[in-house]
């Protein structure tokens, strides 16, 4: 009798648990695994002002069109974004490793209106060697259908978006995606 009651309760609790487990596993619209519909499409063009330290190498404006034909890594960041600080050294290292192999990295500061001093400080702190631009109106971010920052897009030599990474990139992600870009482009 007593065991029977406990068994009934166990079954009911298990059923509720199963329902909620279904809810958890069914995935979420916010899920980071959802792929962008940009993938396979041409990279949306942009031309944005560069920070001063890059002027000698790239001029005052960075236009994406000028760099199509090379594998591209486009990283969106903001000065207030915590994970961006985690990934900045990773990107700088990757730039040092892959830049000489012909991969162009670009940092786009977005959702960060008029935060030029903060942007400069961010770049200086990590001594970012790859060009960084300011998307002051955040409109490029809209074109690229950003979900948030940081997000990183990988564009192949034909100018098509091949992959998108939401959240901070890790050396593994870079190695995998940039490796694929280089193999595909070679």
């Amino acid at each position: 009798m007593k065991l029977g009651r406990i068994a009934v309760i166990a079954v009911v609790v298990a059923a509720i648990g199963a329902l909620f487990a279904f809810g958890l596993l069914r995935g979420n619209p916010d899920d980071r695994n959802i792929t962008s519909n940009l993938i396979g499409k041409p990279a949306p063009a942009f031309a944005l002002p560069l920070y001063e330290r890059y002027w000698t190498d790239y001029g005052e404006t960075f236009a994406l069109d000028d760099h199509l034909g090379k594998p591209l890594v486009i990283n969106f960041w903001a000065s207030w974004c915590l994970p961006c600080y985690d990934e900045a050294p990773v990107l700088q290292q990757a730039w040092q490793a892959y830049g000489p192999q012909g991969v162009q990295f670009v940092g786009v500061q977005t959702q960060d209106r008029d935060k030029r001093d903060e942007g400069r400080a961010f770049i200086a702190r990590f001594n970012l060697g790859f060009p960084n631009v300011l998307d002051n109106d955040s409109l490029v971010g809209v074109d690229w259908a950003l979900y948030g920052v940081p997000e990183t897009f990988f564009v192949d030599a034909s100018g098509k978006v091949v992959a998108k990474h939401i959240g901070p990139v890790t050396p593994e992600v870079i190695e995998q995606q940039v490796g694929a870009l280089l193999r595909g482009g070679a």
Partner: protein
Amino acid sequence: MKKIVYALLGVAVLAVAGFLISKALQSSLVYFILPSEYARDTAAFEGKRVRLGGLVQAGSVQFDDAKLHLTFQITDGLKDYPVQYDGAPPDLFQENGGVVIEGRFHDNVFVGDNLLVKHSSDYHPPVAGEPIDVEALKESLR
């Protein structure tokens, strides 16, 4: 004796509650559908309250700011239908953007009363002539 009375009372209360709840559920369950799902099963959704998800077709938006009347075509790439809505377009409402609108279909025209913009940016507007991943669209609008 008393126990039987209580049991009967309990059953009666449960039956009434169950009846009311199931009736209320039937009338206030709102399905979330896409235009192509309406096209597939028109009879089932005609005149019923639904939440219709889709994208605002480019070039179809007309807003009469004197009468506050908004019309546009909603599409999921497979089918599109005209939508009528009394009110101003909400913040962030834009062509090719995702929307979810609550209302009813009457003869292939959707009359909505609650318009929500879903700026879930995982779904990008389709490029003309290319197929649309309907499942991904639905998932992104939920």
